[in-house]
């Protein structure tokens, strides 16, 4: 048994640093609120109901859909991680956060928000979050998203600064597990982000400014998906960090294995990026052999998630048994079902089983032709990022916001109801979307106003609308709990430390698994794998075909 932080006895953090982390995360919640509000209108559109005309602004369906994707998938997730991962790393290493880096990351994020909000609310960027050229957005949109990435780079640099400082003092020691998995996550992001960095800075931004007259649609789309699959793991891994390292303590169990946890995160570092073509199975211009190779690697990156399923549930079982649960399944009953933070995350895990299975179907090469760009796809990813990630981050918030503000959580019962309502909502919603998708119902389409429909879409659309309504109620209750906690939660009664667990099987001092700590080496190996997986395409395709002028059809 051993701790996953350097010094389990305690950790001090001043009010200024707490405030900076809190505000970074609040920006994420603000984005979530904006995104959810419009998500409600989209879900109802699937049910044939158009409420957009009652909106004070963002009345366009695709304008709102852009806001929904950008706010929920990009700003919410990165704002949260930019606050959460430096906190976990600093705590794990027992080092003070760098105030200047916290502020730099926060203010870059604020600037990114202002630019993107301007572009989207003035209908200058209704291109959806995938930003496929040659639909052309205003330059403020591209620059805003570049700044969002910069803010995540600053947060990543922060992690590396913390690690370097720690290494100088503790030469030869194993990196504490909690720090290792946090740093591995953003290390992977650095590699993954290269695609959008090249696309946005090299092509789209200069194109929107008129410096480049034309651009290459396939190349930009490919660069987007170079980042676009790995990015889902950047959203997911902070949730995994909580499931692996924090939830065990919250339920009274333990982390099963330190080396296996590290191995899982190293596998994500290696395999997250060279899989992007599975989003482009139905694309022209990419050879089927390359697509098949990415299919193989995508099945590979499914594997660490399988390992996670075992470890995380085993930790829950240990907790349930320690709390008096016996028999084969009796431990489930004795889990802390009254603790909203735990319940939200267990429900997130359960939903993610379906998210994972549908994901594997998407990745299944030829089978993808049945589901590609149908409503099935958002059905799938609302059970991954829309619940495994979103619900987990809500669950984490129920201890994190009280910890950061040193206030008692307001309305734990409301929080509990929130988690259940959201989960039931997302399951109904996804059931609707998935069945609709199998009947050919397209995604990203204003169905309430479409000039076509099918009888079999009726039930699917209705379920989508009902589920989406419940999700909206669940999300709104979350904001109520957080706002009431921040405004009225009893001062001085927040948790005094983060709920880090300890391991059943600790890190060894010698043996091959010591090498797992060599993040630089793994990063290099990941880069080599990327060259193998993407090299043949780029070598045979380049130079870029700068043939398409910009279109603003919105």
């Amino acid at each position, binding site marked *: 048994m051993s701790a996953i932080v350097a010094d389990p006895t305690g950790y001090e953090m001043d009010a200024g640093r707490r405030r900076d982390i809190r505000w970074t995360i609040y920006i994420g919640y603000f984005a979530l609120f904006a995104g959810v509000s419009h998500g409600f209108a989209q879900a109802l559109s699937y049910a044939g109901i158009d409420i957009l005309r009652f909106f004070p602004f963002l009345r*366009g369906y*695709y304008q709102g859909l852009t806001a929904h994707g950008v706010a929920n998938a990009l700003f919410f997730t990165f704002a949260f991680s930019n606050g959460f991962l430096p906190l976990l790393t600093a705590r794990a290493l027992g080092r003070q956060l760098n105030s200047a880096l916290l502020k730099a990351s926060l203010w870059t994020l604020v600037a990114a928000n202002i630019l993107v909000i301007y572009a989207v609310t003035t209908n200058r960027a209704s291109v959806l979050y995938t930003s*496929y050229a*040659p639909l052309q957005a205003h330059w403020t949109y591209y620059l805003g998203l570049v700044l969002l990435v910069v803010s995540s780079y600053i947060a990543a640099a922060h992690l590396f600064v913390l690690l370097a400082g720690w290494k100088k003092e503790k030469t030869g020691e194993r990196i504490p597990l909690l720090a290792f998995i946090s740093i591995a996550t953003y290390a992977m992001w650095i590699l993954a982000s290269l695609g959008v960095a090249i696309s946005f800075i090299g092509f789209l931004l200069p194109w929107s400014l008129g410096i480049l007259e034309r651009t*290459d*649609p*396939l190349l930009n*789309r490919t660069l987007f998906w170079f980042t676009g699959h790995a990015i889902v793991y950047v959203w997911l891994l902070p949730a995994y960090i909580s499931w692996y390292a924090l939830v065990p303590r919250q339920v009274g169990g333990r982390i*099963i*294995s330190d*080396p*296996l946890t590290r*191995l899982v995160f190293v596998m994500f570092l290696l395999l997250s990026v060279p899989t992007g073509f599975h989003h482009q*199975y*139905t*694309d*022209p*211009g*990419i*050879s*089927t052999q390359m*697509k*098949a190779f990415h*299919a193989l690697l995508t*099945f590979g990156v*499914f*594997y660490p998630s*399988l*390992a996670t399923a*075992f470890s995380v549930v*085993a930790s829950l079982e240990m907790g349930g048994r320690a709390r008096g649960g016996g028999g084969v399944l009796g431990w489930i009953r004795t889990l802390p079902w009254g603790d909203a933070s735990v319940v939200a995350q267990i429900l997130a895990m359960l939903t993610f089983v379906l998210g994972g299975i549908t994901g594997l179907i998407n990745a299944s*090469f*030829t*089978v*993808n*032709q*049945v589901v*590609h*760009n*149908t409503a099935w796809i958002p059905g799938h990813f609302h059970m991954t990022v829309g619940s495994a990630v979103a619900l987990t981050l809500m669950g984490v918030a129920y201890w994190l916001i009280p910890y950061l503000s040193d206030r008692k959580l307001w309305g734990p019962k409301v929080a509990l109801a929130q988690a259940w309502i959201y989960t039931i909502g997302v399951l109904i919603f996804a059931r609707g979307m998935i069945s609709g998708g199998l009947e*050919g119902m*397209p*995604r*990203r*389409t*204003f*169905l309430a*106003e*479409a*000039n*076509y429909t*099918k009888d079999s879409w009726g039930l699917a659309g209705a379920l989508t609308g009902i589920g989406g309504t419940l999700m909206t109620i669940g999300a709104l209750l979350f904001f109520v709990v957080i706002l009431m906690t921040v405004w009225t939660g009893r001062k001085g009664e927040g948790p005094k430390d983060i709920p880090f667990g300890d391991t059943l*099987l600790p890190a060894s001092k010698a043996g*091959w698994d010591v090498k797992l700590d060599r993040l630089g080496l793994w990063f290099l190996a990941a880069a080599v794998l990327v060259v193998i997986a993407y090299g043949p395409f780029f070598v045979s395709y380049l130079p870029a*075909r700068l*043939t*398409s002028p910009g*279109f603003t*059809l*919105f």
Partner: protein
Amino acid sequence: MKIERYEKAFLAVGAVTLVVFLVALAYTSVAMGIHLPGRAGEVDPAAVREMPPFDDPGVRDLGGGRYEVVLLSQAWGFVPNEVRVPAGSEVTFIATSVDVLHGIHVDGTRVNMMLIPGQVSRNTYVFENPGEHLLVCHEYCGIGHHTMSGRVVVE
């Protein structure tokens, strides 16, 4: 590295399952002839309307129950927007976009392709039974995206 017995078993079963799935997928594409679109040529999106075969979009009877459908997509419609073929035809769709990204999905079939300006999308499908299939653009292409549809009539 020590791994618990149950965990080892779980990981082994998981690995075998994934391999079985991959073998099944390989079988569908090698033995059953189910293919994804691949590289099928490039065009200049500005001049595509003058270039064969896109200078003459429509359905062509190649003889022997084989048909070719040359299809242009543009905001917000398909040319042609109605395709008629006899039941049992092997139909090859050859399509591209003249402006932004579009998609084509023929409902109830695996004809599902992205249409990207500059690139030619190509795939083949056998329509066994008579009936009507909805054909929709399934990639967002601007404010009128939800009005971009057509149909495939199998007679």
